[in-house]
């Protein structure tokens, strides 16, 4: 069974720690070149390889990631 | 008619706690107050009223157990003696900062340091002026008999909950150890969960849906918020000072000389006053029952009536500072005291009185 996923990031509250980036098995999340109002390079989804596994959200200390997943 | 039983002051504290619906006692053994916890353990109130009694690993821990119990809106108390109360000062300050009601009993002994195990009143400054770091006051009530020990537990909780403030029963080794007749007033049950919600809506009871979470804390990192809180405490203390001052007087109406003494010293002083009266000297006694708030007003009035005032204390002269403040220079103020666990006799007080007043 295959899954396709998507994440939504509360970029205003992301602190850009990057822990999600190293935990993503599909390389679907990266730190943006842009900064939020606190000056952090916030995380953003990249590409279309996300499988909605929630690894990024589980390790996120600030609970800023929401994860969606569908079977395909 | 209420039952009368012969008991020690320390035992009266324990029996009163059980009979007045106290929810928990947490303590640590120290002479001369160990009978409080021993009596509670012997009485096993957890089988009758459901009161929790626990021997903690230290006074530091027992006062923090009180902090935890008081946070839940429960009537909780501890007792100790001077060196143990020093350790408790941390927790007392936190409870003043978190505005928690509790009753702490200090059965004073001689100090500083380990000092002696005999009676003393040398924690006056520590408890009345401080009791820990920061800008706060304990409400301090000073029993002078085993009956007071019994009665002050309930009164202490009444004050503690009325003002959300720690109350210290400042007793001493004489009152704690002395056996006297104690009238046991009718028993009062422990508060129900509903009564706690009503008496202490601020308490942590588990957050139901629909009310904001209750947080018990003394922390604020914002100076402006902390200052607003400090000023709120100041208003509370002003109310306490306006409403709760309590004292007793003995032969003060026509007194030309005044003694001021609290706790056990007031009992001994009363005998000295009577002795002086027999020899034609119009002496009188004012006993502050509340040490905070202090009866500054009444002592000030009497200072305008008498030729002199003497503060009689079992220490090097701590309360005398407040007596001087109250007298406001209207008359000379003297001091007589014994230290180290020694106790004065009425005759000694009379002799010191004659010397201070240049009377033969």
């Amino acid at each position, binding site marked *: 069974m295959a899954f*396709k996923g*998507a994440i939504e990031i509360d970029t205003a509250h992301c602190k*850009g*720690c*990057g*822990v999600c*980036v*190293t935990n993503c098995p599909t390389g679907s999340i990266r730190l943006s070149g842009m900064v939020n109002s606190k000056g952090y390079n916030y995380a953003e*989804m990249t590409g*279309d390889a996300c499988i*909605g*596994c*929630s*690894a990024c*959200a*589980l*390790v*996120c*200390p*600030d*609970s800023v*990631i*929401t*994860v*969606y*997943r*569908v079977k395909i | 008619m209420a039952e009368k039983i012969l008991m020690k002051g320390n035992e009266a504290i324990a029996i009163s706690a059980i009979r007045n619906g106290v*929810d*928990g006692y*947490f303590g640590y053994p120290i002479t001369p107050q160990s009978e409080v916890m021993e009596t509670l353990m012997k009485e096993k109130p957890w089988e009758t009223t459901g009161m*929790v009694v*626990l021997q*903690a690993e*230290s006074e*530091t*821990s027992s006062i*923090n*157990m*009180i*902090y*935890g*119990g008081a*946070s*839940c809106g429960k009537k*909780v108390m501890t007792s100790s003696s001077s060196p143990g109360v020093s350790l408790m000062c941390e*927790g007392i300050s*936190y409870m003043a900062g*978190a505005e928690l009601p509790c009753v702490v009993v200090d059965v004073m002994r001689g100090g500083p340091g380990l000092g002696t195990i005999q009676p003393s009143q040398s924690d006056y400054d520590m408890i009345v002026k401080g009791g820990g770091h920061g800008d706060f006051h304990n409400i301090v009530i000073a029993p002078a008999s085993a009956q007071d020990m019994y009665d002050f537990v309930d009164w202490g909780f009444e004050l503690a909950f009325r003002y959300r403030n720690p109350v210290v029963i400042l007793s001493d080794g004489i009152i704690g150890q002395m056996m006297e007749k104690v009238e046991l007033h009718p028993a009062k049950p422990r508060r129900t969960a509903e009564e706690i919600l009503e008496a202490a809506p601020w308490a*942590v009871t*588990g*957050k*139901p*849906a629909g009310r904001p*979470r*209750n*947080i*018990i*804390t*003394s*922390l604020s990192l914002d100076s402006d918020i902390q200052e607003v809180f400090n000023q709120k405490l100041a208003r509370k203390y002003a109310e306490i000072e306006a409403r709760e001052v309590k004292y007793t007087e003995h032969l003060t109406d026509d007194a030309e000389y005044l003694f001021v003494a609290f706790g056990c010293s007031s009992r001994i002083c009363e005998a000295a006053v009577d002795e002086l009266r027999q020899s034609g000297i119009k002496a009188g006694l004012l006993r502050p029952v509340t040490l905070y708030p202090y009866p500054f007003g009444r002592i000030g009035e009497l200072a305008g009536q008498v030729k002199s005032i003497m503060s009689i204390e079992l220490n090097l002269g701590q309360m005398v500072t407040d007596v001087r403040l109250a007298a406001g220079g209207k008359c000379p103020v003297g001091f007589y005291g014994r230290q180290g666990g020694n106790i004065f006799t009425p005759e000694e007080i009379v002799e010191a009185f004659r010397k201070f007043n240049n009377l033969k």
Partner: protein
Amino acid sequence: MDIADIKRPENLVYRKPALITDNVMHYCPGCSHGTVHKLIAEVIEEMGIQDSTIGISPVGCSVFAYNYIDIDWEEAAHGRAPALATATKRLCPDKHVFTYQGDGDLASIGTAEIIHACSRGENIVVIFINNGIYGMTGGQMAPTTLIGMKTSTTPYGRDPKLNGFPMVIADMIAHLDGTAYITRQSVHTAAAVRKAKSAIRKAFEYSEKNIGLSFVEIVATCNSGWKMSPVDANAWMVEHMFRKYPIGDIKDVLK
């Protein structure tokens, strides 16, 4: 399939726990505290015990834990949380009572309180965050600081001759008869987070059985105090901290 089509309510698989408040956490980027807070919030939510849970926060970085999890809280003096929890649980035996303490709080100034709460077998949960350093006061040595580790009070590295040895609290308290469940976990990977959450859930469930104290140590990072990036701190933790503080269950009286 478009990303917009995936982001529909029926496809939601993970979101911020309902019991985590909207207050922005004051923790540094990548700090383990936020992750552990989240797990506690999820466990309370899933067990449906919000209205019967009382948390006790410590002194240290997590002093403000009460700002982040939507339950009733008591904020303790430094190290005293187990004393507060003892009375809270004994006076309110139907409540779930937990302390949340760091290593400065629990392993240094609060050793007497934690050891005696364990020894008495209080039916409480203790969450112990061990990152080998004092965070809030600016990175001083903790009892758990590793040998050779540089902190602001061991600028040349912890030297056992000068500073003594690291304390392994979880193993120490395992010898006490009053403890029921003792485990050491971490939250640096998704798998670790899942295991840590199960451990926290088990600890809360054990506290309902009145079989003694449950203790969940989380080996954690303090990237600011360690002066590393959050990602590097996680790698350093795995390489160095796990050697002294190995991950896994230490005691389970029901097994």
